[in-house]
């Protein structure tokens, strides 16, 4: 026993302490509890991992039974293998940094304790998610992080848009979870267990499905779940709106950790996915389509956080692409590096926003390079990392993905490369609009306090050197054997060039000749508007699903079905009874002669009926 349960327990304790007593604590105490609990969790995770190294096989700890019903047994069981180890380090490590950052960022907010309570709760669920040893426990974390996401998006609950965005996130995630739970049911029916070891062991014996079958069904349903959590087509719509939450939340939940849960889950279920090529192909295409679509939208947005949000969607698509082509370790590698640079991008953006007193529109920024130099410096690291400048962390993972994709399908590869260029373009665009040129805003920018920029610096280092330091595919070798051959220098050059082309193009358009973007967008006209308005997907969902559902429920089901029809029948029966009563009453005319007539009629009927019945039994005896 290594008491793995302590890893999620620390943040849970932090949540409880801050949640219950936080209102009476000073901000310092709240910060200490919150940061301390996550740091402890990080430390404990590190300790466990060091003790467990080299972790060739999973280490499982069982505590007690959670649900037992017939053959279905779900224990509280945590396990660590190398995949989990990586996720643990990312979650607790980046989590700690963001917690520290947030103590500075959120300093002036009301409900400071509430924020950190939620954030700790998130850490608890996220750690449960990665440590779980069965699907149901994973699902606990899965839904739990969704809840925290909901709570934190709606943190500014006075704003209608914030609470709406929270609802949207939760409900869209619910749709994904619906798929996930169906997948779980099928897994239990097929394998008789939800336990990872048992399921994967059993899955190994299953032949690879050529046509769609049970494995394909399970995997596609898991994909639905993953698409919800990791914001893939068609369920990505919640993530851009989720930027209503405070920026550290965007960094932690909606960039670094939670949204990669889908990637983690698919990688975790690799044993099943490899048996379902159709599903794998679907995963790849969904990922690719998401990457392209989100990247194009990212080029047109002006809200700095929205740009990064679409960038996240796009990068997640990249990861799914990797998973789909069977490069699970490359996908996870990208999860790690993306966590570094995207967290940094968001936190940096947060620093900018903080500096500009909650200004998020890039058209009101510019020239901040000199005003907030530290922020600029760290952001620049993230910038080159995401753009795939050689030897940065992003470059390593992206090249790994593209290499695998090329191996799988050249068509996908070229689309992927184009996307990489677009990615570099929009990130560079945001950097140029923010930090170069003239300052277009009115607020007085001020540099963030050290508590904010120190974590940024750490992340900056990781963004630059992360890929070099952590060779994820190598670590994951026991789990996901690397199939294809060594590096192809040509491919790496193409990939690197794509990034540089993107940066260059952005430089031309936003620094060298600033009038160019407008002329291009106006010349594109309808296409530009389509992309600018995010392909009108939200509007389409609203018109085809949400509004028909609500109005149909109101008029069709409730007012017509329930009140008019069903209740009408019920009350109608009452009315019918009264109507009969009214009819029966008229027999009682009050007239003696009519009563006498009834007596006579009754007598006659009695005699005839009795006679008829008697007659049928024979006459005289």
């Amino acid at each position: 026993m290594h008491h793995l349960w302590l890893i999620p327990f620390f943040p849970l304790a932090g949540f409880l302490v801050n949640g219950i007593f936080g209102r009476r604590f000073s901000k310092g105490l709240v910060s200490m509890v919150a940061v301390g609990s996550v740091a402890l969790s990080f430390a404990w995770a590190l300790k466990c991992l060091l003790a467990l190294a080299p972790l060739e096989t999973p280490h499982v700890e069982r505590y007690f039974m959670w649900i037992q019903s017939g053959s279905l047994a779900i224990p509280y069981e945590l396990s660590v293998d190398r995949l989990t180890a990586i996720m643990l380090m990312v979650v607790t490590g980046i989590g700690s940094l963001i917690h520290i950052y947030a103590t500075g960022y959120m300093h002036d907010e009301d409900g400071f304790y509430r924020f950190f309570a939620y954030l700790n709760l998130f850490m608890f669920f996220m750690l449960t998610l990665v440590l779980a040893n069965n699907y149901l426990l994973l699902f606990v974390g899965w839904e739990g992080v969704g809840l925290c996401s909901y709570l934190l998006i709606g943190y500014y609950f006075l704003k209608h848009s914030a609470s709406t965005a929270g609802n949207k996130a939760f409900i869209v995630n619910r749709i994904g979870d619906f798929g996930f739970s169906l997948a779980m049911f099928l897994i239990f029916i097929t394998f008789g267990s939800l336990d990872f070891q048992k399921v994967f062991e059993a899955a190994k014996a299953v032949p690879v499905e050529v046509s769609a079958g049970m494995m394909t069904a399970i995997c596609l349903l898991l994909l639905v779940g993953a698409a919800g959590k990791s914001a893939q087509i068609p369920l990505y719509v919640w993530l851009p709106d989720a930027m209503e939450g405070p920026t550290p939340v965007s960094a932690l939940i909606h960039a670094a950790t939670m949204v990669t849960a889908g990637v983690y889950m698919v990688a975790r279920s690799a044993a099943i996915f490899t048996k379902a090529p159709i599903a794998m192909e679907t995963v790849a295409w969904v990922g690719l389509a998401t990457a392209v679509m989100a990247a194009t939208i990212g080029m047109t947005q002006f809200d700095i956080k929205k740009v990064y949000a679409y960038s996240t969607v796009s990068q997640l698509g990249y990861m799914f692409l990797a998973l789909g082509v069977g490069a699970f370790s490359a996908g996870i590698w990208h999860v790690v590096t993306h966590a570094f640079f995207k967290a940094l991008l968001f936190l940096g953006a947060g620093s900018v926003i903080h500096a500009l007193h909650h200004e998020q529109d890039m058209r009101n920024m510019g020239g901040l390079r000199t005003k907030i130099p530290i922020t600029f410096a760290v952001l620049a690291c993230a910038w080159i990392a995401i753009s795939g400048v050689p030897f940065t962390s992003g470059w390593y993972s992206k090249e790994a993905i593209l290499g695998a994709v090329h191996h799988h399908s050249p068509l996908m590869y070229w689309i992927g490369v184009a996307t990489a260029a677009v990615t570099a373009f929009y990130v560079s665009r945001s950097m140029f609009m923010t930090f170069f040129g003239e300052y277009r805003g009115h607020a007085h920018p001020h540099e963030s306090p050290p508590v904010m920029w120190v974590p940024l610096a750490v992340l900056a280092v990781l963004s630059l050197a992360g890929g070099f330091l952590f060779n994820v595919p190598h670590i994951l070798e026991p789990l996901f054997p690397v199939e294809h051959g060594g590096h192809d220098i040509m491919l790496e050059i193409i990939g690197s060039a794509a990034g540089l082309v993107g940066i260059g193009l952005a430089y031309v358009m936003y620094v060298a000749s600033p009038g160019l973007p407008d002329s291009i967008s106006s010349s594109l006209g309808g296409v530009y508007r389509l992309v600018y308005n995010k392909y009108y997907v939200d509007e389409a969902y609203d018109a085809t699903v949400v509004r028909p559902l609500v109005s149909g429920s109101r008029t069709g089901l409730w007012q017509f079905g329930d009140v008019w029809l069903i209740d009408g029948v019920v009350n109608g029966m009452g009315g019918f009874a009264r109507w009969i009563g009214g009819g029966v009453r008229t027999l009682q005319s009050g007239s003696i002669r009519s009563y006498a007539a009834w007596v006579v009629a009754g007598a006659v009927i009695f005699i005839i009926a009795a006679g008829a019945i008697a007659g049928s039994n024979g006459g005289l005896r």
Partner: protein
Amino acid sequence: MPPIPLPTAVPLTYYLILSAILFALGVAGFLFRKSLITVFMSIELMLNAVNLTFVTFSYQHKQVDGHLFTFFVMVVAAAEAAVGLAIILTVFKNRGTLAVDEIDSLKL
């Protein structure tokens, strides 16, 4: 005491038919007459039809029981008449009418 022989020309059935006709007349009278008194008398007619039946059967069975029953019926009819007429009287006093059809304030 041997029963007095009846004229053979009149079979017992005739008495029964007569009583049935009387009974039916009573019923018809109850149903179709408009005055309370007549209606009441119709009931008496029905009871007398019954009496005739009893006597006839009594004769047929060579028993006295039926004759006895007739007296019971007559006594009861007398009591009924006393009460009935008294009730009719109070109705007339209160309403000033003896029409059956006007006594229908309690209804529905």
